[in-house]
């Protein structure tokens, strides 16, 4: 377990030395602070719009960090050949793989906590309102980022970072539209059996990331329905299950990869 923590910490240190990390974080914070300047923000719906736009930006930031870190962390070490020194020590490849993933999650957790703190302070300063409910949305953004990072890491074991970023982006899009689009493709009688089969496999195998998106509900003060503890536990279970499967597949492939 000590090796896993050592690997995780190395990812955090590595991320803190990447300009990309600060650029994405700074851009997100600046854009959040600029939301009140939008013309439509002046017509009495400022708070809802502010929260929705801020959560949207935070989702994009988490998506970018998860995909970029997940896609580059292992290929980067292979490319720089630092992995030879590391894996020649008495550690298993499973520990390495799991440690790197957990490191990505720690970076995401730190970033999301920072963003949450800034958001809460900003809303408190602007609207005189303490809005801890936002933490629920950021938590589900974190869960979605875990799924994406685990998927990116599986793809990155064999493919180049660029291809990996592209495929993870595709995975993200398909997993968000699958509920509607794939269901129709699977059941549409006009579609070919091959297309229906592929759509069916994707529908049942891929996670429905739209289920993890509670931004709109939270942004509008949970007026439509409350996101309770049970709902969060369910969503956590869904994300954890998919992430665990992805980690197992990724670790299994990585264990057999020649370096």
């Amino acid at each position, binding site marked *: 377990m000590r090796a896993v923590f*050592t690997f995780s910490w190395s990812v955090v240190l590595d991320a803190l030395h990447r300009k990309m990390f600060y650029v994405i974080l700074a851009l997100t914070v600046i854009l959040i602070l600029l939301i009140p300047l939008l013309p439509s923000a002046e017509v009495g719906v400022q708070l809802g719009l502010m929260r929705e736009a801020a959560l949207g930006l935070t989702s994009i930031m988490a998506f970018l960090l998860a995909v970029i870190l997940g896609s580059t962390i292992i290929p980067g070490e292979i490319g720089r050949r630092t992995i*030879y*020194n590391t894996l020649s020590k008495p550690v298993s490849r499973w520990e390495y793989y799991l440690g790197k993933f957990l490191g990505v999650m720690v970076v995401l957790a730190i970033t999301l906590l920072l963003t949450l703190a800034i958001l809460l302070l900003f809303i408190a300063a602007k609207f005189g309102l303490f809005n801890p409910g936002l933490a629920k949305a950021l938590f589900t953004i974190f869960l979605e980022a875990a799924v994406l990072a685990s998927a990116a890491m599986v793809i990155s074991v064999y493919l180049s970072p660029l291809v990996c970023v592209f495929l993870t982006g595709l995975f993200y899009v398909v997993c968000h539209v699958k509920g509607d689009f794939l269901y129709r493709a699977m059941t549409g009688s006009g579609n070919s059996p091959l297309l229906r089969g592929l759509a069916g496999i994707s529908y049942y195998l891929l996670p429905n990331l739209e289920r993890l998106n509670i931004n709109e509900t939270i942004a509008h003060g949970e007026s439509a329905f409350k996101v309770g503890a049970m709902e969060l536990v369910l969503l956590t279970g869904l994300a954890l299950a998919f992430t665990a499967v992805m980690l197992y597949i990724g670790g299994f492939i990585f264990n057999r990869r020649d370096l």
Partner: protein
Amino acid sequence: MQAVLRIEDLRKSYRTGWRKPRRSALNGLSLEVPRGSIMGLLGPNGAGKTTTLKAVMGLIRPDSGNIWVFGIDGITAEARGKIGFLPEQPYFDLYLTPRRLLGYYGRLAGLNSSQIQSKISHLLSLVDLGEVADLSMERYSKGMLQRIGLAQALISEPEFLVLDEPSSGLDPLGKEQVRDLLEELKRGGKTILLSSHQLSDIEEVCDGVAIINQGLNVASGSLDELLRSRDEYEITLERPLSRLKGKLPPSASWVDGQKKTMILSKKEVNAALKVLLEEGAEIGEVRQRRMTLEEFFFSRVGKGGGEGGR
């Protein structure tokens, strides 16, 4: 003497592209490294040296064959705890300082904080980087990085060291330091397997060599055993003789301009000695000829060897 490393019939091939034939890197390589020795792995580019070392460290999976380290079949994390590895041209995250880098590898090697601290101080002074231990490695020369590479290989006090081109990129002084370090490690009882292109380095520090060509071990053994020619002898005279033209056996030829030392085939030694004594020569020494490692290497690999593997 018990072998620290034993490799038997190791085979490895790589896919070279989509729908292209696989390329063999190792074609049934066998090798033994006796305990307490320094074994040099020689071979032309692409002979399979690095593939062999990577297989020993478990960085690649052989197609078939066996590797025993300390008598145990297979490369486990536990086995790696007793091995120190220096890859060819080691790379590190350069924003780190040597002290932090060694701390990181020390933790991975399972050392506790106090062990790490004492090991770091010892290793940094061993590789002569104590004074720059807290500077980031961004401005380090290739030689300094190579020395840090050696230090990280030694962090767990391994019994067996696997070094891929340890002198690569070093200036003559750096090479000398590495040679001294290897000899010191050997005196400390370590077993070392090192690959190198530098025949002179190997000849100076190694007890034995294995020559690899096209994924096969084409010759291995102690240097004395290998370099002593079975068929040729060397006769050295105390003083040069000039009146021998046409009298010596056909295989005899002078190896120096002074005509003091000749080499000839074993079966013609007696005939040559007879002629020499009749001509009044003073015989200094008669011995089995010892080839240079370079001569031996080319006799096994040929001048066109190489690029047969990866």
